[in-house]
């Protein structure tokens, strides 16, 4: 792996606070880390540790107060709003805890909302099969279970074949079995399409299937470990 690939994502002294004066609250207090290309990176930490804020800043939908982020050599802080939108459009995929599907578009159309953003999207039918949604492709979101809806939202994010897939607690609203299915899917996507995945979770068990685990507490990195003994999603238990 080249130096560039190893430092595919580089974060330097990232700081963020909310409020001002007496009510000022430092959420991120100077983070430094790198993520390699194609890596499955998990951001762990308790509520309020700043992991979601970090993910939002990485995703270009929130601003840092200080510090720099380089993605594949591009410096995020240099980008204006339009540049950030184009950056998200070309390079990022987003998956949220809530699925945020468009209620009056069917499964395939919801995925197409992602495909439309890419000049070279993945083959949608093939993706639907991988997602296990091919038979359901004509259904509307309200006809699907929570797990199925989250698959659609992953499909929507992945279909444009983004460089980085950002997942914010994707299993947070799902039961054990469904969560595992989703994790399996993410694992599969990572293996098949080779996207860099950054997942925010508070589920400690998930770190076992990650390549890279960053633990946050009180806005600081407490651990930054490369997992050399990763197991499959199937093998996870919690």
């Amino acid at each position, binding site marked *: 792996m080249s130096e560039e690939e190893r430092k595919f994502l580089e974060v330097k002294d990232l700081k963020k606070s909310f409020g001002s004066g007496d009510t000022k609250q430092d959420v991120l207090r100077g983070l430094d880390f790198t993520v390699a290309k194609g890596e499955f990176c998990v951001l762990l930490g308790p509520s309020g540790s700043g992991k979601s804020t970090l993910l939002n800043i990485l995703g270009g939908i929130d601003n840092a107060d200080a510090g720099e982020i380089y993605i594949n050599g591009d410096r995020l802080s240099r980008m204006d709003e339009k540049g950030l939108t184009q950056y998200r459009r*070309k390079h990022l995929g987003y998956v949220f805890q809530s699925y945020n599907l468009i209620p009056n578009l069917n499964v395939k159309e919801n995925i197409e909302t992602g*495909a439309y953003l890419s000049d070279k999207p993945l083959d949608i039918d093939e993706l639907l099969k991988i997602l296990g949604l091919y038979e359901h492709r004509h259904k509307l979101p309200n006809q699907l279970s929570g797990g199925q809806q989250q698959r659609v939202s992953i499909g929507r994010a992945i279909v444009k074949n983004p460089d980085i897939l950002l997942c914010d607690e994707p299993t947070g609203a799902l039961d054990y079995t469904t969560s595992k299915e989703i994790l399996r899917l993410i694992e599969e996507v990572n293996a098949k399409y080779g996207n860099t995945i950054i997942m925010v979770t508070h589920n400690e068990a998930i770190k076992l299937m990650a390549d890279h685990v960053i633990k946050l507490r009180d806005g600081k990195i407490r651990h930054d470990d490369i997992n050399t003994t990763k197991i499959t999603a199937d093998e996870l238990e919690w």
Partner: protein
Amino acid sequence: MQNETVHFGKRPGNPLNRRVWKDLVSDWKRYLMIFLMLVVTIGFVSGMYVANNSMMTAIAENVGKLHQEDGHFELSKKADSALIAALESGEKADVVSIFRERAYNEAEEKVVEAVNEAVEEKVREQVRNAITENVTAAVDEQLAGYAAVGMEVSDEQRQSATEDALDTAMAENYDKAVEEALKTAYESDDYKTALSDAMKEAKDEIDKEINEKYDDLAERYELNKDFAPVPVKIHELFYKEQTELIPTDASYSGKIRIFNERTEIDMYDILEGRAPENENEIIIDRMHADNVKLKVGDRIKAGNTEFTITGLAAFVDYSTLYEKNTDTMFDALTFDVAMVTPAGFDRLSAPLHAGYAFEYVNKPADVIEEKVLSDNFLKVLITQTAVTENETEIKDYVPAYANHAMTFAVNDMGSDEAMGGVLLYILVAVLAFIFAVTASAKLEKESSVIGTLRASGYTKGELVRYYMSGPLLVVIFASIVGNILGYTVFKNVVTAMYYNSYSLPTYETLWTPEAFIRTTVVPLILMLVINFIVIIRMLRLSPLKFLRHDLKKAKRKKAVRLPKWKFFARFRMRVFLQNIPNYIMVFVGVCFVMLLLSMAVGMPETLKYYQGSMTDMMFAEEQVILLTTDDEDGNTVETSTEGAERFSMESLIRKSDTLDEEITIYGITDGSEYIKLDKSADGVYISDAFANKYKVAKGDTITLSAKYENKEYKWKVFDIYDYSASLAVFMPNDMFNTEFGRKAGAFSGYMSDAHISDIDEKYIAKTITDEDMLKIAAQLDHSMGSYMVYFQYVCVIAAAIILYLLTKIIIEKNERSISMVKILGYSSGEIASLYLVTTALVVFVTEFAAIFIGYEAMNAIWGVLLMKLGGYFAFVIPFSGFVKEFVLVFAAYMIITVIDFIRIRRIPKVLALKNVE
């Protein structure tokens, strides 16, 4: 580390585009309502524009095609060829020289007569003296001869002989001698000198008098003002007026103005039938025929003369049937215009009205130029008739631009168009705001989806385009359908409306770009702009804010603390506070509807009120205006009718840029029972119609002008007299006679509550009764009354649609909470009382405010409307009218409430549990 087996597909089209259609389908009720409202408004307004444009073009073309006059005048008698020639020359008569010349001529005759008389008297005396001297001498000589022969002659004999001889001599020689002497005298230089001296003296006297009066003459005939000759071509436009009777309808009686055959000027467009060909045939006005249900082939009577109608026509100079140009309103119900052949004209026994139409030789370029020409021609007319030998008077002068019969229809169409345009824009603005509120509600509802799409890289532009597409498509479809309906159905509705009021010619439907721009392009842009602003403002927020449902620009306010009301009251207050923007829209929408309703309810109510109280409004039920106050024997025309009072009347003009309005001036006898004036009044009284229309207050000074003279009258207003039937000025009769330069004790006629029947008709110029005043209301009622009822329904529907759209938003916003309280165990009735009662209260309160605002706005519009019309009557809505307005809108709301109740019942309980972020 991408796997080699990855397959790529093609980039699909924007799925959001497909979603636009799905949105339209899934929310079809809302869009259908908006669509219908737009279709009807765009359709009606574009129909109005198309109809107006087509018709006004036809009218404008007819001005040339049918040789419309540039103006007309009426004289008290037929003009001789000299007067016609003088008028056509367009030169002002040199009034001063002609008067001087005439005075000189008159003086010359008198001077010659006087000098001759003096000369003759002197000559006669001289001749008599000479003859007497000669005869006396001859008699003396003869008697001296007798004395010489001794004959005694007594003094008596001498006397007698002398007298006899003198008689004989006088009889034989006097006349001849006088004649000869006169001849000599007239040829003498002395005579000529005497004559010229006398003439000089007389002329000096005349010059002195004319010089003294010059200022007065110069002012009256505007001799010193700029003047350019106005050559014109004059055409006879003789007519006779008679009572119109329909043999098959005994109850009908109207007035018909029958013109002699028209061949050169003011031609006509025959809409049905043909022109008259013999003395028994007549063509009459199409509009009037429709109103009184006359058809081609029917018979009518003009006085006692019967005619067969061969055609129904639109005369180019009578597109609106104004009997007199100073009438407040036209009258197509009881006034008719007709034309017969010359032979037919001779059959009519009524007196001839010497009407003349004129055309400028050099046509004016615009109205301003036309006004100058018309003012100048009036001077020509005044001066030339003033110098006629046979005392011709001007009875009427109306230039084309000021002729209501020719301009009213066009102006009315113009103002209808303007009004339609304004209503369209208000409605479009209301709809655009409904769209905007809907869009903002939708953005709020889809907050997380928008956040996700923005986070995924959708640009603001893409989302703006998407959220604007739905409303845009609705507007485009509505525009297309509206325009199609405008050119077909609504155009016919509008033309039917106009044909129902005016005598309009046939027309061809014209493509009207202005209609398209005004009804389609402008509303489209208006909608787009308002929507764009609302949507772009919201989409400016960061994706994160959307993901967090944090869409309020301002920092989240703390909950308003409410007093310790009961739970339901507080809940309702919360619903109210949460929906303030929607309730503001409810307010605006209801105000808009109330404005329309004020017109729809107020107009017929005003007419009804006016018709109902007209008799009470008139100060006396009958006013008889006399042609002359002296009968043939020189005695004053009297009446023994109980309560009859003498009064004087004169018409003056209140000049303004928009309208020269006729004001009636009354001279009232002291101690009148009908008009009670304060004797010590320092100034005049004006009727409150006058005061209201022109906003004149006590103490102000009014300036009125004589009609055909350049003379101004300025009076201070002492008080406002409670009289709303006409624009009038009241003053004591003595003051009246002084002001108008009449003899003391002069008067114009009698007013009385009882019918005056003992005055010979030949002395009566006209009788004014309440029926004359009611004509206005009757015509207005006929022209607009029936449409106003439809208009009321339209208003109710508009109110219902606006309320439907807004309450829908309020309920949609609260769907989840409603679902939640359902789960908690609240019944649908209780939920309805929480959510619907709040809206009901808002609508209830809003209605009161809106009724007031709508009424005030309509009052203002009414004032502007009447500024263009002659006369005045106040806009009146009785209490029952307000109640009607209130009930109509509330009824619309009740229907919507039922729909809302059903909506609330249909909200599923599971909604609250589903997919809550």
